[in-house]
C-alpha cells in the first residue's frame, strides 16, 4: 500500500475523529501537511480556557499552517492587514517555531468564515480541487464556533494580533507542525526523534548525515500522533522572532499591485455615491432629483430613508448627480446641538455627580480624608473634542445581491461581522453570503463598523446588479463614528513633602478598554476614579487606542500639574510614583535618558514627558517643542517602549512612529465641531492632517521586558504624545493646555 492509500483507508480519516490528538492535521494536496491548533482545556498555553466552558475536550484556535510539496510553508493569518504589518509578524512567530526557511514562507489571509475548516469555500481556500479528509470535521465540533462567538473571531484591533493570536496560536501551530515532521522522519529513518534537528525547512539527522526537506515528510507527518502540548522555544532559541524581517506586503504596495477594498472589480459593476442625513438619526423625507435624472451616466436615484444614493456608470457621474439633488430631512432632537451645548451637558452631569456620585471604577484608601488633609490641593478640568478617523482610503464597499446569494468586497477589521451585516442587509442566511476581504487603506477602528457594508448591500439589493459604493471625503468626515468628546475633572492632594497622596477623578463616558482611566502603576495611597454617562447623538467609534486616547492626555496632564505644584520636574515626580515597579521605571528612565532630560534648551523651547501603559505595552515619550514661532513646532520625540518582546523591531518601531503621526495630528489639529446638530468639517482643509514639514524626528528604543506576556504595538504609541507635547508647551511657555486641540490656543 502506498502512503496515500493508507491515508484514505485509515478508519480515523474516513469517519469520525479518533480523539488521538488535540491538533487537527490532515493530508491535502497530495503530500502536504495542514495543521490547525487545538489546545486541550487547562493547557497552560491556553489562557482562553475560562471562555471554553462547554465541556469539550479540545478547542481549536484559529490558526493554520500548510506545507506544500515544493517545501513552501504557508501561514494562514486570521487577521487583516491595515498597514500594521500583522501578516509578517504572525508569520514570523509561526515560522520560527517550525524552523521554517523564512524565504520560503507564504501568507494567506483566512476567509471570513467562522467554520472555514468545514465550509466548502474554505476547503477550496486551503486545498483547491481536493477532497479534504474527514479528519477536519471534528475540529469544528471541537469548538471553533464557540471560540469564535466568544471572542469575535478574526477581529483585528485592540493591538491584539501578536500578543494573543501570535503568542497563543501561531507559535503553537508552528511548533506542532515541526514535532510532527520530526516524528515522521524518525519513523522513516528508524532513529530517535531526539537525534533529529530542524533548520531552514530541512529535517536533519547529523549522525547518519541524512537531510531532507519538510515536504518529503509532510504526508507522513499527518499520520503521526499529534502533540498535546508542543514545546515552544525559549527566547535564546529564536531565529526569526525578534528580527526586523521585511514586510511581506510592502513590494506590492510600492509597485501598486496591492488590492485594497476600493480596488474591487466585478464584471458589470456600477458605482454609487451616497449622502446620509447630515444630522445623525434624521431621515430623508423627500428628494428633488429633477436635474440628477438628466445627468450623464445616471442609472438610478434611491431614497433609502436614512440616505440618498445615486447609481451611475462611473463614480464621478454618481457623485455629481448626487450633488445636484435637493433633499429634505426630518427634525431630530439633535438639530439644535452644537459643541458648546454638548460640553454643557457634560458639565451638568459632572456637577450633579459631585464629590461622590457617578459610577465608581476603582477606589483605594480614603480620598475624602486624604484630600482634606493635603498640604497642597490642585483642581483641574480637561476637555477633548470629537475626532474623525480620516482613513486615507475613504469608506467603500462593493456588493452584489442576486439569485439568493450575496457577494461583498471590502476591507474590514472584522470580516465575520461584515459578512453577518451583509447577510442581514440582504435578508439572506449567513452561509449564502461570501465576504471578500482586501487590504485596508487605514483602519484605526473605523473599519470595525459595518455601516458601509450594510449601505452597499442595501443599494445592491435594490438594483440587482453589482455596485461599488464609495463615500466622498466629505461624507467620510461628516458621517464617521467618532472618538467621543469628553470632559475629565481632577482633584489632587500633595503632602507637605510634595508626595501625591490623593487622586480624585471623574470623567464622562467609558467605552474601552475599561482600565483606560485607571492608574494602578502609579503608587498613590488614596484614589478614586468615577464616570458619568451622558447621551451623545453622534455615534461612538473606537479610535486608535480608544479611551486611552483621551485618558492618556487627562492623566498625564494632571500628573504634570501635580509635579509643578510639588516643585518637582515631571520626570522626577513620575519616578517617585513608579517606585517599586522596575519594569515601568526602566521605560521611563530610558526615554528620559535618550532625550537628555534636564539638559539646557534654547529660549522658548521645552521638553515634556508622558508615560502610558496600554494594551499590554509600556510606553514613555519625551517631546521637544519650539515655541518661538506663531504656532508650536514639535521638533523631536523620544520613545521608549516595552511590549514584553518585540517580534519585529522594524514593524514595531514603525507603529510607534505612525502612532505619533496620528496622535500628533489629533493633538495639534483634530476637532470635529457641530452646528445645528450637523458636523461642520468636510475635508482636509478643515480637518487637517500633520504635514511632512511638521513631522518631528522620532527616536525609538525597544525593551524586551517579559517575553511571556506580550503587549500590542498598534495603539500604545499614541496615548503619550498629546500630553508629552502639551507638557512641553507648558515647560516652554508656562501656558497649560487643558483643552485639545492645541490649535485652539493662541501663543502670540
Amino acid at each position, binding site marked *: 500500500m502506498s502512503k496515500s492509500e493508507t491515508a484514505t483507508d485509515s478508519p480515523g480519516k474516513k469517519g469520525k475523529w479518533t480523539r488521538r490528538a488535540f491538533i487537527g492535521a490532515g493530508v491535502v494536496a497530495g503530500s502536504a501537511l495542514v495543521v490547525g491548533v487545538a489546545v486541550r482545556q487547562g493547557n497552560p498555553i491556553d489562557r482562553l480556557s475560562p471562555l471554553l466552558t462547554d465541556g469539550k475536550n479540545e478547542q481549536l484556535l484559529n490558526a493554520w499552517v500548510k506545507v506544500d510539496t515544493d517545501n513552501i510553508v504557508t501561514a494562514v493569518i486570521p487577521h487583516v492587514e491595515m498597514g500594521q504589518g500583522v501578516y509578517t509578524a504572525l508569520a514570523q512567530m509561526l515560522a520560527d517555531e517550525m524552523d521554517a526557511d523564512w524565504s520560503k514562507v507564504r501568507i494567506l489571509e483566512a476567509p471570513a468564515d467562522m467554520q472555514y475548516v468545514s465550509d466548502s469555500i474554505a476547503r477550496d481556500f486551503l486545498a483547491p480541487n481536493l477532497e479534504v479528509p474527514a479528519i477536519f470535521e471534528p475540529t469544528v465540533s471541537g469548538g471553533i464556533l464557540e471560540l469564535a462567538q466568544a471572542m469575535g473571531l478574526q477581529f483585528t484591533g485592540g493591538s491584539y494580533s501578536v500578543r494573543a493570536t501570535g503568542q497563543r496560536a501561531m507559535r503553537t501551530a508552528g511548533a506542532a507542525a515541526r514535532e510532527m515532521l520530526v516524528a515522521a522522519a524518525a519513523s522513516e529513518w528508524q532513529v530517535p526523534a531526539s537525534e533529529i534537528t530542524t533548520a531552514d525547512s530541512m529535517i536533519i539527522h547529523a549522525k547518519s548525515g541524512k537531510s531532507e526537506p519538510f515536504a518529503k515528510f509532510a504526508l507522513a507527518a499527518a499520520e503521526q500522533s499529534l502533540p498535546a502540548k508542543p514545546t515552544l522555544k525559549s527566547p535564546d532559541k529564536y531565529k526569526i522572532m525578534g528580527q526586523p524581517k521585511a514586510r511581506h506586503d510592502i513590494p506590492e504596495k510600492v509597485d501598486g499591485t496591492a488590492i485594497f477594498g476600493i480596488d474591487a472589480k466585478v464584471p*458589470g459593476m*456600477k458605482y454609487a455615491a451616497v449622502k446620509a442625513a447630515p444630522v445623525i438619526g434624521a*431621515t*430623508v423625507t423627500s*428628494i428633488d*432629483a429633477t436635474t440628477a*435624472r*438628466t*445627468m*450623464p*451616466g*445616471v*442609472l*438610478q*436615484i*434611491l*431614497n*433609502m*430613508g*436614512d440616505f440618498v444614493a445615486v447609481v451611475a*456608470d462611473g463614480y464621478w457621474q454618481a457623485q455629481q448627480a448626487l450633488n445636484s439633488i435637493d433633499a429634505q430631512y426630518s427634525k431630530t432632537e439633535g438639530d439644535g446641538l452644537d459643541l458648546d451645548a454638548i460640553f454643557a451637558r457634560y458639565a451638568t452631569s459632572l456637577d450633579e455627580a459631585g464629590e461622590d456620585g457617578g459610577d465608581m471604577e476603582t477606589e483605594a484608601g480614603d480620598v475624602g480624608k486624604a484630600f482634606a488633609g493635603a498640604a497642597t490641593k490642585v483642581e483641574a478640568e480637561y476637555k477633548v473634542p470629537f475626532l474623525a478617523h480620516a482613513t486615507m482610503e475613504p469608506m467603500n464597499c462593493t456588493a452584489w445581491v442576486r439569485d439568493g446569494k450575496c457577494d461583498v468586497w471590502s476591507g474590514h477589521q472584522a470580516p465575520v461581522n461584515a459578512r453577518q451585516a451583509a447577510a*442581514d*442587509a*440582504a*435578508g439572506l442566511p449567513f452561509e449564502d453570503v461570501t465576504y471578500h476581504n482586501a487590504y485596508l487603506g487605514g483602519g484605526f477602528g473605523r473599519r470595525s463598523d459595518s455601516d458601509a457594508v*450594510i449601505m452597499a*448591500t*442595501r443599494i445592491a*439589493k*435594490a438594483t440587482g*446588479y453589482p455596485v461599488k459604493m464609495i463615500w466622498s471625503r466629505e461624507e467620510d468626515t461628516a458621517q464617521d463614528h467618532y472618538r467621543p468628546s469628553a470632559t475629565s475633572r481632577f482633584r489632587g492632594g500633595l503632602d507637605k513633602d510634595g508626595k501625591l497622596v490623593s487622586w480624585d477623578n471623574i470623567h464622562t463616558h467609558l467605552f474601552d478598554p475599561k482600565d483606560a482611566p485607571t492608574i494602578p502603576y502609579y503608587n498613590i495611597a488614596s484614589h478614586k476614579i468615577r464616570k458619568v454617562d451622558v447621551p451623545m447623538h453622534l455615534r461612538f467609534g473606537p479610535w486608535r487606542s480608544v479611551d486611552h486616547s483621551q485618558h492618556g492626555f487627562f492623566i498625564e496632564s494632571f500628573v504634570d500639574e501635580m509635579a509643578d505644584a510639588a516643585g518637582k520636574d515631571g520626570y522626577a515626580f513620575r519616578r517617585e510614583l513608579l517606585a517599586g515597579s522596575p519594569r515601568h521605571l526602566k521605560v521611563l528612565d530610558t526615554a528620559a535618558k535618550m532625550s537628555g532630560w534636564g539638559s539646557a534648551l534654547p529660549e522658548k523651547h521645552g521638553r515634556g514627558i508622558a508615560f502610558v501603559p496600554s494594551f499590554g505595552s509600556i510606553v514613555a515619550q519625551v517631546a521637544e517643542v519650539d515655541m518661538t514661532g506663531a504656532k508650536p513646532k514639535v521638533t523631536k520625540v523620544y520613545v521608549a517602549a516595552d511590549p514584553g518582546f518585540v517580534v519585529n523591531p522594524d514593524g514595531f518601531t514603525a507603529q510607534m512612529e505612525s502612532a505619533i503621526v496620528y496622535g500628533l495630528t489629533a493633538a495639534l489639529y483634530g476637532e470635529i465641531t457641530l452646528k445645528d446638530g450637523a458636523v461642520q468639517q468636510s475635508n482636509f482643509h478643515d480637518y487637517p492632517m500633520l504635514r511632512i514639514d511638521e513631522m518631528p524626528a522620532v527616536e525609538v528604543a525597544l525593551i524586551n521586558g517579559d517575553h511571556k506576556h506580550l503587549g500590542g504595538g498598534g495603539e500604545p504609541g499614541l496615548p503619550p504624545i498629546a500630553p508629552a507635547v502639551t507638557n512641553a508647551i507648558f515647560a516652554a511657555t508656562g501656558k497649560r493646555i487643558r483643552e485639545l486641540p492645541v490649535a485652539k490656543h493662541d501663543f502670540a
Partner: protein
Amino acid sequence: MLKLIHVIALSPLFVLAACGADPAPGPVEQIIVREPGAAPVATAAAAVASNPASALIAEGKAAFANCSACHAVEQGAPNGAGPNLVGIVGKAAGGVAGFAYSDALKASGITWTAAELDSFIADPAAKIPGTTMVAGAIADSAERQAVIAYLESITAN
C-alpha cells in the same frame, strides 16, 4: 419624454422602519433612469435643448447599439443577420445587394420612407408577415424617431 425613464415609488412596505425591527430597509423611493447597458438617454436628452437635430441623431446612434448586432451601418461592411443599412432611407425594400431577403419582404413593394420605417420597426412581423426580422422591434416611438434620424444621417458616399 423618453419611455426609458420610469419612476417607481415603492409601496410604504419598505418605508424606513421607525421601530428598527428591520435592520436593512429597502428604498423609500427608487427612480430607475436607465438599465445598465441601455442607451445613455440622459446624455442625449441633455443635448436636445442646444441642438435638437444633432442631439436626436446622437440619441439614435446610441439606441442603434441594440440593432448593430444584426445590421452594419458602415459603407462596404458585409451584411449580417440583417442587411447593411447604409442609405436605407428612400431605398426600395429588398434592395441591398447580397442579402437573402424573405419572399414576403421582397414582394412588399415598400419604399423605406421615414414613415414606413417607423411602422415597420415598431412591429416588423405585423407590418410584413413572413419577414425574417424577428428581433429588434422598438416599441418606444421617440426612440424609433431617433433611430430613423440616425439612419437618415448615414448616406452612401
